């Protein structure tokens, strides 16, 4: 697209080494306690959790005016490790991080679309996850054993409230921008709705105000795969073996929804790994790919977290929560500049759903930027189309704050 002169150069996949000028370098996550046993964090669906520890990472310097904060909200299987190379990967046993930089390293770094030499970038692992923030694999103080399914139901709203508590603790009142994709995009939207005066810009990538029936259906099957695994033991499996098979199947199926028919055809076609047929083992390249995705996922994810997070994704409905079912009414709350980006072949959060959200903002008399990016990468496109997404972010971050024109 245009204006390439001033826009950041896309980086090759695999990521910049830590000593390169475009990398944030070696990173160390921090942890902050944001609720205690005596003073627990109240949850949207009832109940409470305490203590809560939140793992987060930051890059760049907070400006003296504290007006350069970009909050990144991560997706289902994401974490606070957005960019750079985890200095503590061996210590924490997150060995997969030795081979890869953070999940948005192509976008976040010095001179990149989200320029860490200019912005103070913050991302926190959400409640119920398994990457350092309190979740079902954390010890329940009442029993001294992992919560498992005794962990309360959490919501996108809870995540945002907890992130706000983190910002309070860090002395940050307003954020320059909150940005996320997929489930992260729903958090960005929830931020704009729950804290209209704390968010100057909200960027929602590949996400809509609620998941479709089809999306609910895929999540349901993923959870069933986990819960029907003989190793599930009602979620109380931490002392024994994890329900790896069920979690792998859930991930494999979810991965199908992250690609597109066209993208799969191009990447794998009907190619086989072996020439002759070998019964029902892994034979086609697409099977091999999914098998690899499933296997690598179980090394880094907790099955109970998968249940809790997909449920949060199911429950989120911005119109129901903020507009009594009317999305336009909900959008009237928003005070941020909003950009919604869909990807043409995304069939999880479709362009039609994203467009409907953008139209609701228009109907609510809110300015909106809506872009449908042509891509064959399906839902994954928000993490793949880095050149286009980078250009859009780079430019939109310079949009004057609301009320300035």
């Amino acid at each position, binding site marked *: *697209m*245009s*204006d390439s002169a001033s826009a950041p150069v896309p980086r090759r996949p695999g990521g910049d080494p830590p000593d390169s000028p475009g990398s944030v370098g070696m990173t160390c996550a921090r942890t902050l306690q944001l609720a205690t046993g005596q003073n627990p964090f109240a949850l949207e669906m009832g109940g409470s959790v305490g203590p809560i520890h939140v793992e987060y990472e930051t890059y760049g310097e907070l400006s003296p005016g504290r007006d350069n904060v970009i909050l990144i909200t991560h997706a289902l299987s994401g974490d606070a490790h957005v960019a750079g190379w985890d200095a503590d990967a061996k210590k924490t046993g997150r060995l997969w991080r030795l081979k890869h930089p953070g999940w948005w390293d192509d976008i976040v770094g010095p001179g990149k679309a989200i320029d860490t030499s200019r912005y103070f970038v913050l991302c926190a692992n959400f409640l119920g996850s398994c990457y350092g923030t309190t979740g079902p694999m954390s010890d329940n103080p009442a029993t001294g054993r992992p919560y498992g399914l005794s962990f309360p139901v959490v919501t996108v709203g809870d995540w945002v409230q907890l992130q706000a508590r983190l910002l309070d603790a860090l002395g940050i009142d307003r954020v320059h921008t909150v940005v996320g994709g997929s489930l992260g995009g729903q958090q960005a939207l929830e931020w704009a709705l729950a804290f209209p005066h704390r968010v100057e810009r909200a960027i929602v990538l590949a996400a809509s105000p609620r998941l479709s029936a089809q999306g609910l259906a895929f999540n349901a099957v993923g959870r069933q795969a986990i819960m029907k695994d003989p190793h599930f033991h009602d979620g109380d499996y931490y002392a024994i073996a994890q329900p790896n098979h069920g979690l792998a199947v859930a991930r494999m199926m979810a991965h199908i929804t992250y690609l597109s028919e066209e993208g799969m055809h191009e990447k794998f076609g009907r190619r086989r790994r072996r020439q002759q047929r070998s019964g029902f083992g892994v034979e086609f390249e697409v099977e091999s790919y999914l098998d690899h995705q499933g296997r690598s996922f179980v090394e880094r994810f907790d099955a109970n977290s998968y249940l809790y997070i997909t449920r949060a994704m199911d429950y989120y409905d911005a119109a129901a929560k903020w507009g009594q079912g009317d999305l*336009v009414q909900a959008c009237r709350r928003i005070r941020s*500049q909003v*950009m919604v980006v869909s990807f043409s072949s995304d069939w999880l959060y479709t362009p039609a759903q994203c*467009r*409907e959200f*953008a*139209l609701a903002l*228009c*109907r609510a*008399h809110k*300015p*909106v*930027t*809506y*872009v*449908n990016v*042509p891509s064959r990468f399906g839902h994954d496109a928000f993490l793949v189309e880095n050149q286009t997404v980078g*250009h*859009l972010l780079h*430019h*939109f971050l*310079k*949009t*004057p704050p609301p009320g300035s*024109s």
Partner: protein
Amino acid sequence: MNFNPEQIRALLTAIDPSFSSLSEEELAGLVDRPTAPRSPDSPISRWQDRIIQQLIPQKGSVLDLGCGDGQLLAGLMTTKQVRGQGVELDPQAVMQCVSRGVPVFQSDLDAGLKGFADQSFDYVVLEETMQTLRQPLDVLREMLRVGRRGIVSFPNFGFWQVRLDLALRGAMPVTHCLPYRWYDTPNIHLFSLDDFLGCLPQIHATVLESHVLAAEGIRSLQPNDNIFAQEVLCVLSARD
């Protein structure tokens, strides 16, 4: 050119009697006029923007259909503090809007303004775009549903130079305002000022004011402008 000056004079005089008094030099000048597209920096370029700048009140709201690179809205948002919203299909133009800080909704106008609320903008602008639409009347109707006023500008295919081009050269006209060749033009619905005015009763619209670009510059609409106006800008409202 195989026509002699008197034949050309006869043709033009048939279009409008005032041409009968032209000298031979003037006639030759008309026929051999340059056909290069005008530069975006020329003073008549984007004359419609200046009129629109004057029409829009402070803190009004403007929906610009086919907003291109967002220049008009960027100006209105700065000088008039309007609530501006663009609609544009072209990806490069959309990116230029984003880089200017102009809110832009990427969409095909022929897909309609469905979803935009009734009377939700003071003005809906359709600048030099109507002739590129598949269903121009549907878009005009939608404009007057979504906006209290519509502002439409378009090239006038009844302009005498256009007529002369077709008559003398037997080829599709190429003028300053119509810089395309037949195979690369985005203009798929060609119409004159009279054609436009004639369709307004069908969509229950009425013209509140009109401005034209003619040889002597920008001025208000006059009776013979189906012949003398190169480009036209009309402010429309729904007829009560």
